[in-house]
């Protein structure tokens, strides 16, 4: 009996720890959730908030970074997305979620250099203290979250996933997931494909 009790206590403990370890995933936004405001420092030193985009239809939030080869392969395509959809009401907001102490080349100075080398047309924010990416449930770079403003003017999470179906070769892309999702939103309907997956670099968390 006693062993049984200890056994069940251990099970409860194991379950509890399992859930504590997973809190970041449990607490993150799901499709349809309202996204809370965040304020992060941009590479120009100014603070950028989601509320600054109050007069837009939405935003394309891209967690990306300097060092990851998958992020690099998508840089030109992220710039193209911004150029194409900023004027249609969906600008890109890029956020580097990595802790620079753990991830070489992802520090604030390197972010500035990369943005200027590539000619980023959008803010490139630093998730200092790594408070924002867990709310989105971002796990990798690049990881895209499309926000769409509803009638109440709230930003609602409408798409999570990849930019398209071919990281390595932009010319061989067959499905442009982000573009299709935004075209659906522009027609006042929900994206037909709301979630996709792709390989990426794990987000580097402070040790």
């Amino acid at each position, binding site marked *: 009996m006693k062993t049984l009790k200890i056994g069940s206590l251990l099970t409860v403990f194991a379950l509890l720890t399992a859930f504590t370890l997973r809190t970041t995933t449990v607490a993150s936004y799901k499709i349809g959730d309202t996204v809370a405001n965040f304020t992060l420092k941009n590479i120009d030193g100014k603070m950028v908030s989601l509320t600054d985009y109050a007069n837009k239809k939405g935003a394309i939030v891209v967690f990306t970074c300097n060092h990851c080869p998958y992020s690099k392969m998508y840089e030109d395509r992220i710039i193209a997305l911004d150029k194409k959809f900023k004027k249609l009401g969906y600008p890109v907001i890029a956020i580097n979620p990595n802790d620079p102490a753990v991830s070489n080349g992802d520090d604030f100075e390197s972010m500035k250099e990369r943005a200027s080398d590539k000619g980023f047309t959008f803010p490139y924010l630093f998730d200092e203290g790594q408070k924002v990416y867990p709310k989105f449930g971002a796990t990798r770079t690049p990881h895209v979250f499309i926000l769409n403003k509803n009638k109440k003017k709230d930003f609602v999470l409408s798409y999570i996933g*990849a930019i398209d179906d*071919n*990281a390595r*070769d932009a010319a061989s892309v067959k499905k442009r997931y982000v573009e299709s999702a935004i075209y659906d939103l522009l027609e006042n309907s929900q994206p037909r494909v709301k979630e996709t*997956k*792709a*390989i*990426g670099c*794990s987000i580097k968390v402070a040790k």
Partner: protein
Amino acid sequence: MINRLIYSALILLFCVSCAGKPEKKEQVEIAKISMPDSAVKVLNYEQLKPYLVKDDGKTYVVNFWATWCKPCVEELPAFEKLHANFKNKNVEVLLVSLDFPKQIKDELIPFIDKRNLAPEVIVLDDPDQNKWINAIDKSWSGSIPATLVYNKNKRMFFEQSFEYESLIQELNKFIN
């Protein structure tokens, strides 16, 4: 009559051309695998799949990694050690590399040689990631490192880094 002849000739021509195509494709793929300067197989997801569903009584530890992925390279020693300690105990380690094809020769092969990497390495080269990530495990968001442990009775997927001790802890759930 002549019309009919032309018609059947056209059909024949069409059939020949359509039957010819897949054969050609297969040849290309086989050629890729048996590249003389490469010690690793390069497979698409359909070709890799048999390695992920074996039911021969062994336990398989399949690690998804790449030479460009720092945390992947950092955890490799755990998988090398596991391979060394368990290869005679019905456990097989497979390292599925997500290195890009153009890096196989210049990055991956030298890496394997320099390190004397003992477990088998297979390159997964398949652009339709949205399809195969879910097929490998629904819970996988797509970040690496990631590890699949399975045998004929049990299957677990881990989107995380491992140290030797934590890896053995999970492996013990399969072999004890």
